[in-house]
């Protein structure tokens, strides 16, 4: 009897979760496969004559393959930001953890303040403009690196504390300089944190809307989130294409989710419980 009740509750729980969390996704999917008229009804019915490929092709071809350019830009943005982020933060975390000095609390304060202070938008634009990087992909990459720095450097610093100093000492005795010690020995040991940061940041940066909106305006420079945002007002009569776009840009995070679910969860909890 008790077993039956437990199974009953469980089924109810799953049904509820599927309804609340699954229905919106189902809604997005079915409407990506309808024609414009069907999608304007905004209902949950499975399309009578599914046209997923046609819609996806149509949305890709819109405005001279704008979406393709957006995907190229977003991919470049994500890739380069992560390369810089990983390299710079690992280097900084390495020295910050190994050297404990009088100035250390100051550095820590500056890093922690980066976790809570909202970035000052227009002054950042002014600075970027001053060095000729406003409206450039490199400028936006540097913004992503600067904003991702506090979280990533803390993860690296915490992990460095678990790498025994004896490893450094042995390497130094063998005649390793700082650079060789870091790149040959330490960096490979930091691999678990690097993996976490790569996965977490790629989702965050790929999904970022606010920073491209401010720092990379202009039609040539669009990212996938910006195109989706712009299509919202352009496709008021073609919701099917809007949803096809949503479907397309949800695929990359979905793949990451399928492969790295555990690592994402572990990274998020590790980062947040320590901060």
């Amino acid at each position: 009897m008790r077993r039956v009740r437990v199974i009953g509750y469980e089924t109810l729980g799953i049904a509820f979760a599927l309804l609340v969390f699954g229905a919106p996704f189902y809604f997005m999917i079915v409407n990506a496969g309808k024609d414009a008229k069907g999608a304007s009804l905004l209902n949950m019915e499975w399309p009578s004559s599914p046209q997923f490929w046609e819609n996806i092709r149509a949305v890709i071809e819109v405005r001279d393959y704008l979406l393709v350019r957006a995907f190229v830009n977003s991919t470049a943005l994500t890739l380069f930001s992560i390369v810089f982020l990983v390299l710079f933060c690992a280097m900084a975390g390495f020295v910050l953890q190994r050297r404990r000095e009088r100035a250390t609390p100051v550095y820590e304060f500056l890093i922690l303040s980066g976790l809570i202070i909202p970035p000052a938008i227009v002054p950042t634009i002014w600075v970027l403009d001053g060095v000729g990087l406003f409206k450039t992909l490199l400028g936006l990459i540097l913004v992503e690196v600067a904003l991702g720095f506090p979280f990533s450097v803390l993860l690296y610093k915490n992990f460095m504390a678990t790498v025994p100093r004896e490893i450094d000492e042995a390497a130094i005795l063998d005649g390793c300089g700082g650079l060789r010690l870091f790149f040959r020995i330490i960096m490979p040991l930091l691999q678990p944190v690097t993996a976490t940061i790569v996965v977490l940041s790629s989702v965050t940066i790929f999904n970022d809307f606010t920073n491209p909106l401010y720092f990379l305006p202009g039609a040539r420079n669009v990212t996938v989130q910006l195109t989706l945002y712009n299509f919202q007002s352009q496709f008021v009569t073609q919701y099917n294409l809007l949803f096809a776009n949503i479907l397309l840009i949800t695929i990359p995070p979905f793949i990451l989710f399928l492969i790295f679910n555990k690592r994402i969860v572990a990274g998020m909890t590790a980062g947040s419980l320590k901060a």
Partner: protein
Amino acid sequence: MKSIMFKRTYSYWFLVPAGIVYLLIFLLPTILSFFFSLTRWDLVDWTFIGLENFRMFFREQSLAIGFQNTLIYAVVTCFLKVVLGLFLGVLLTSKLRSKHLLRSILFFPTLVSTIAVGIAFSMMMHPSQGLINSALAAIGLSGPDWLGDTKLALLSVAFVDVWKGIGFAVVIYIAGIVSIPTDYYEALQIDGGGGWHKFWSIIVPLSRPATHSVIILSFIGGLRSFDLIWTMTKGGPGFTTDLIASIIYKQYQGGFYGLSTAGNVILFLIVAVLAVPLNMYLNRKEVER
């Protein structure tokens, strides 16, 4: 000798790349914002106008509403994430066989683009055709105009924020609950406490570090929130759902750079004045325990 070796190995040169980027792109603009918030500014020239921008923020109804809305939004999303996060966290650490599946379902929205979520929910909240109101109509209720009603719109968006972010809170709670030593449950069993007892006297107090993280992260996140409100309402109807972050964007678009920067400074001060003491208060409680 050793110290020279030490300094050469752990050279400060390692800090330079990250340091330059962080200093130039984050710290410098933050410091500059305090100056530029006191000016009328077109990115080339500035005129010093003292506290005029801040006065404007408090006087203009369309700007002042941002304070109230930002606070409501942050408090509502934070509160719901704590309560639902704890509840779901307990549920998903119990003996449910499907808990791994449920965790994944709950967590996935965290990774989806906020813009996509915002667009989908705007359509689901459509007053006559939207899914939510159709579902309500099917059981004989007439749903409100979720995003068009000035009293309701902000809360509707806050609800979507919770929907998207709850997975993160749940994950933190699960980590917190799993780390509670099992001795406590055994002791409770010997003393003969029931399920409620277990919840109130063990799980709630001992998962406090998780509560702390969820409160701080979602409160600060709520104060800074922009994407979702911008996708779903653009601050409308009228100015009724404008948050400080959306006002910053509107003033920026209008070319009022000094005013926009003043908004940034205000947001900074609000975060500093509310979140930092809150964090200290929660920390103190933890030490006392």
